């Protein structure tokens, strides 16, 4: 068990009365409630936490927040295990188990570190240059590289936790709960506006939690507590702590992940959602996302023990942890001096403050000097000693260009280096909102410029680094946002006083020079997570990758899970330096959501298992289920595929079902067919425009088959439309095409033909449809229907009648998809089950057999009826299908007509629909099999077409197939070869009609 030897005796926002046990890389430690994993590790003297991605160099904790590139851990084991979490953000809980993500076999001894010795031959673009050839070996290289470089592991078991989503609207969303965000929320909330304040941390206060600041003559955290209490008391304010605003999308739509129980670990109450995804639609947005401290790019700046100054300050103030005993500060500005004072007050010895500025002066600096610390201006760290932990630094004087160093190196002993290159406003959300940043040369950072959306930035993310300015900007932005959302007059409340010493801006030295072998610069890390150095940036520029977007992709700078929060600005500034461009001209790469990684679990929410996708059920579904149907997914519908009897194979069931239809009586649930009710004086005109054939002659009571084409002339959908009345039609579509056809017709009516007087109503689910088919269909219907004359003459094929079937009001359509006498009985859906049961009962004497979609397909293929989307694929015209007969030559126009007369569409060598009969009648071709025009020992072979439908035909006692074959219409009688894995099959090209080609049976 480790000892918290670096823990301070008092202070901090931790609960010393509540100690927590945890393990890291298998070793046991304790920490306190209020700790992060990182602060608890530091309290136990653990600085080395992982290995770097490419060179496997030892790495320590760099930051105290979301920007952490090094301290990435795999949390937990088994199904709840989560990779790549930042130890700086993981709240400690009792029993927490964590391991470094990128070191094998251990963090202290790492075989991959040989990569460090080989780093001379692992420059930027190494993978592109080395593993390009031979291309066929790339998969092997890739798996080796991934194995060596992988970041964490995804759990393999199903996630046992519950995740939820909430849609929420607000007048003002405030992202970030530091001083600026709290002020904005107060200003907006007091107006009565609906406000959401979201902050990623476990408590509000932002950077103030790690500082010893003053507001209104009191501790700043006192002001924070008052603000939070006031906000909590406002009805229309929603506080989301542990709520990370991760994405800013169009129309001021933002995503927030609230980590509800992550911090409780196993103590979380079962059933409570682990995380909630808040989908926020905001009228106005205030970004108060703070800033990240910028590392300095100096030689070996990645040694464990090199830390951001603000992070060390936060560890001391917030977590009561001394990150080291003897510290050297290395800074470009005044910011580090307050950190130095805080560390000194905590008992950390200040060995020196090395300042890049030649003559640092000011009240803060004098205060630090007054504590006995040496302040060394105009100097730079040129080397860091110690592999697994800093043991000292070497410093030298900068020359006046800051591109070189002078004199003799001086060595300073230390176990901690705190660096501060200045601040980078966290522009991530602003940039995601399509806002344009600009470079502020005075403060040496990018700040928000033009907003593209209803968004304001306030505080440090807006380049305001002084507390008083943060508060003032927050109040102003909150009041203005509320006003623009319709609340209040926009007058901000008076901001409280927050005194701070004056602070001078940084001296930007983007690449800190060094000496000796290190002067090559290949160990000046820019991107810690992806091991990108200043030399890599320069190399990329030399090789012509001098746009920031190319630089990113070539060097992978900024492409880690941290998205380069610490490295990007340094990388592009160094690029500017190398290419002689202005930083403002180089610009930033595009920021993309999420701000920090979001787990798949919360994005999926409850859309898992049964709720993953809606299963659409017909009114007769429960009967199918109870009677053993095996279901097939057709779009979102569950359709009976076949109904196996006990011990019956699918093949046997389908043969039995087909035989029943051909010899006696089958019954099928056809409720899923799309149905559109069409009314209006221009209904006929609409049909004429959307179908290829002519509809003028269709009489009331009659039905007609129609093909619809897209504007490209390709088959789009098909179905039977019936005339119900003078201006009233009932259209049917394919099951899968129903929604598409309805939307397509509405689009034409609303955008192109608004003058047509016609209304469409979807009635797909209003009607349950049961088709009875077979030689005994008429006899069965006659028993159940007394008010329709079913005689051939009175009720011919392709007509419909209204009446009652089994006492239920019905529309009966005499249409057939099986080639047998068939009736599609439509009743209101609530009667569907009763109708089905009545038909089953009355049909028993005919051996009535329910059949599924598979038998339906066999029966229709025997007849050569196409299924749109099965025998067509969006590149097939009616002429290709041999259905020229359905394309009206007389009609002036219909959708797709113009495309059909283009010469390319009329070519005779297009793929055309044919039948195929294999030489071996037992051979059932796989659908999708290729017809080849030349047989070769192995693919590729020239392809002449493919099989679209293929079945065993019980009626013919042999296999049948339909295929699209180049020039197929003229190739009847030819023999073609279908190439299958391991064999070639020969088949005769035929008409795509195999059974009762004259259609005598269905008219019978």
């Amino acid at each position, binding site marked *: 068990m480790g000892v918290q030897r670096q823990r301070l005796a008092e202070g901090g926002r931790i609960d010393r009365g509540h100690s927590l046990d945890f393990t890291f890389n298998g070793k046991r430690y304790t920490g306190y409630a209020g700790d992060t994993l990182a602060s608890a590790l530091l309290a136990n003297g653990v600085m080395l936490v992982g290995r770097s991605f490419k060179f496997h160099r030892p790495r320590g904790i760099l930051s105290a927040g979301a920007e952490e590139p090094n301290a990435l851990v795999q949390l937990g084991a088994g199904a709840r295990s989560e990779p790549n979490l930042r130890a700086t953000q993981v709240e400690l809980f009792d029993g927490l188990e964590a391991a470094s993500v990128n070191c094998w076999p251990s963090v202290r001894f790492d075989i991959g570190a040989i990569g460090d010795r080989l780093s001379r031959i692992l420059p930027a673009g190494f993978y592109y240059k080395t593993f390009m050839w031979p291309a066929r070996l790339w998969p092997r290289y890739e798996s080796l590289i991934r194995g060596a470089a992988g970041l964490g592991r995804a759990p393999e078991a199903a996630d046992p936790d519950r995740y*939820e*989503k*909430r*849609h*929420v*609207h607000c007048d003002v969303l405030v992202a970030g709960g530091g001083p600026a965000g709290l002020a904005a929320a107060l200003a907006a909330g007091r107006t009565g506006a*609906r406000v959401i304040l979201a902050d990623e941390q476990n408590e509000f206060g932002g950077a103030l939690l790690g500082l010893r600041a003053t507001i209104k003559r009191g501790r700043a955290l006192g002001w924070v507590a008052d603000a939070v209490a006031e906000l909590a008391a406002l009805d229309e304010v929603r506080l989301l702590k542990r709520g990370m605003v991760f994405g800013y999308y169009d129309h001021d739509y933002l995503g927030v992940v609230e980590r509800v129980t992550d911090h409780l670990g196993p103590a979380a109450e079962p*059933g409570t959602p682990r995380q909630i995804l808040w*989908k926020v*639609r905001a009228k106005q947005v205030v970004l108060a996302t703070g800033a990240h401290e910028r590392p300095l790019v100096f030689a070996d700046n990645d040694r464990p023990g090199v830390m951001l100054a603000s992070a060390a300050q936060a560890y001391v103030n917030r977590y009561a942890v001394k990150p080291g005993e003897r510290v050297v500060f290395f800074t470009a500005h005044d910011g580090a001096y307050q950190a130095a004072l805080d560390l000194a007050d905590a008992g950390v010895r200040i060995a020196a403050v090395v300042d890049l500025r030649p003559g640092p002066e000011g009240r803060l600096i004098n205060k630090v000097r007054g504590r006995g610390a040496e302040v060394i201006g105009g100097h730079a760290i040129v080397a860091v000693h110690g592999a697994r932990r800093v043991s000292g630094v070497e410093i030298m004087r900068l020359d006046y260009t800051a591109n070189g160093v002078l004199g003799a190196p001086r060595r300073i002993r230390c176990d901690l280096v705190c660096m501060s290159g200045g601040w980078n406003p966290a522009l991530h959300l602003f940039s995601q909102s399509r806002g344009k940043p600009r470079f502020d040369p005075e403060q040496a950072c990018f700040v928000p410029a033009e907003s593209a959306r209803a968004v304001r930035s306030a505080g440090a993310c807006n380049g305001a680094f002084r507390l008083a300015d943060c508060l003032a900007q927050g109040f102003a932005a909150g009041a203005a946002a509320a006003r623009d959302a319709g609340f209040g007059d926009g007058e901000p409340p008076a901001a409280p006083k927050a005194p701070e010493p004056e602070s001078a801006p940084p001296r930007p030295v983007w690449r800190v020079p060094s000496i000796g072998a290190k002067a090559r610069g290949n160990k000046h890390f820019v991107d810690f997570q992806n091991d990108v150095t200043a030399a890599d940036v320069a190399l990329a520029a030399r090789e012509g990758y001098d746009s920031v977007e190319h630089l990113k992709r070539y060097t992978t700078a900024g492409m880690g899970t941290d998205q380069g929060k610490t490295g990007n600005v340094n990388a592009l500034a160094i690029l500017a330096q190398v290419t002689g461009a202005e930083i403002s001209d180089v610009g930033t790469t595009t920021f993309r959501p999420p701000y920090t990684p979001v787990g798949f679990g919360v994005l999926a929410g*409850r*859309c898992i298992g*049964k*709720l993953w*996708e*809606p*299963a*659409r*059920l*017909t*009114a007769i579904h*429960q009967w199918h289920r109870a009677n053993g149907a095996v279901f097939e997914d057709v779009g979102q*519908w569950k359709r009976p595929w076949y109904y196996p009897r006990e011990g019956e194979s699918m093949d046997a069931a389908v043969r039995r079902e087909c035989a029943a239809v051909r010899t006696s009586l089958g019954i099928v649930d056809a409720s899923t067919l799309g149905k559109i*009710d069409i*009314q*209006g*004086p221009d209904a006929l005109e609409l049909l004429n425009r959307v179908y290829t054939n002519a509809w003028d002659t269709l009489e009331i009571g009659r039905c007609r088959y129609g093909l619809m084409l897209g504007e490209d002339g390709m088959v789009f959908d098909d179905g039977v439309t019936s005339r119900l009345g003078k201006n009233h039609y009932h259209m049917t579509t394919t099951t899968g095409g129903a929604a598409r056809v309805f939307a397509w017709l509405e689009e034409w009516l609303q955008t192109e033909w608004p003058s047509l*007087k016609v*209304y469409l*109503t*979807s*009635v*797909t*689910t*209003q*009607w*349950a449809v049961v088709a009875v088919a077979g030689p005994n269909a008429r006899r069965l219907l006659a028993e159940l229907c007394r008010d329709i004359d079913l005689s051939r003459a009175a009720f011919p094929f392709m007509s419909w009648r209204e009446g*009652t079937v089994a*006492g*239920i*009001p019905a529309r009966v359509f005499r249409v057939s998809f099986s080639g047998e006498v068939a009736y599609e009985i439509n009743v*209101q*859906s*609530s*009667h*569907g*089950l*009763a109708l089905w049961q009545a038909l089953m009962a009355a049909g028993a004497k005919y051996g009535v057999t329910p059949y599924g979609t598979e038998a339906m397909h066999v029966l229709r293929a025997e007849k050569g009826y196409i299924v749109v989307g099965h025998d067509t694929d969006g590149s097939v015209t009616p002429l290709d299908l041999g259905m020229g007969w359905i394309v009206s030559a007389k009609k002036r126009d219909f959708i797709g007509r113009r495309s059909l007369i283009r010469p390319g569409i009329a070519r005779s060598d297009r793929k055309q629909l044919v039948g195929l009969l294999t030489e071996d009648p037992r051979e059932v071709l796989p659908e999708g099999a290729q017809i080849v025009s030349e047989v070769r020992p192995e693919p590729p072979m020239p392809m002449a077409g493919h099989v679209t439908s293929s079945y065993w035909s019980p009626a013919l006692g042999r296999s049948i197939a339909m295929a699209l074959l180049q020039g197929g219409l003229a190739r009847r009688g030819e023999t073609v070869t279908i190439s299958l894995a391991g064999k070639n099959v020969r088949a005769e090209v035929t008409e795509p009609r195999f059974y009762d080609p004259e259609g005598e049976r269905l008219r019978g």
Partner: protein
Amino acid sequence: MAEAYLRQGVLDHLHLDARAVREPGEARVALCERRFVGKVSLRGRPTKRFLAAVGQALGFEPPVAANTAAGKGGRAALWLGPDEWLVVTPPGSAGETAEALRAALKLQHCAVTEISDGRAVIGLSGARAREVLMKGCPLDLHARAFKAGHCAQSTLAKALVILHQTSDQPAYDIYVERSFADYLWAWLEDAAAEYGPAIVQG
């Protein structure tokens, strides 16, 4: 009209009656299926003549304000679009309502289509009903934005729905394509689980 016993409610297979409580008591969310609610789709341009004819047939004029509902005597008309309403009637009366509308609109271009069986109606009410909907509906359902008498077409989870707020309790009637009802009910029960939902008589 066929014998009533031949009719099936959309969710009968879930045996909600057997699970229903008589008094929802303190339940923060109550759910039910409203079986056999009559529904008629009404299409037509909202001219004065059209509105008056519909008013004569229904006893009230259909609303012309977007996403609002009007009603009287157990019937309601929900605005779905500039020329589209869903007329809701008590069980068993959709046919006569449709006939009355057709008669009143005989000389006008319109479409009156009975769609009672095409959609299921799920009732959702209780103090936390709004929170349940927030889990799957992107609309702003805050009491300031969506009140009794408002209706809207939207998505709830992965189903298209018409949402009609019937009281400020709040209570909602959710109209959903019949084929999606089983899915949506399962989704609602799951979403409401944390509030201890009660199933009540429709």
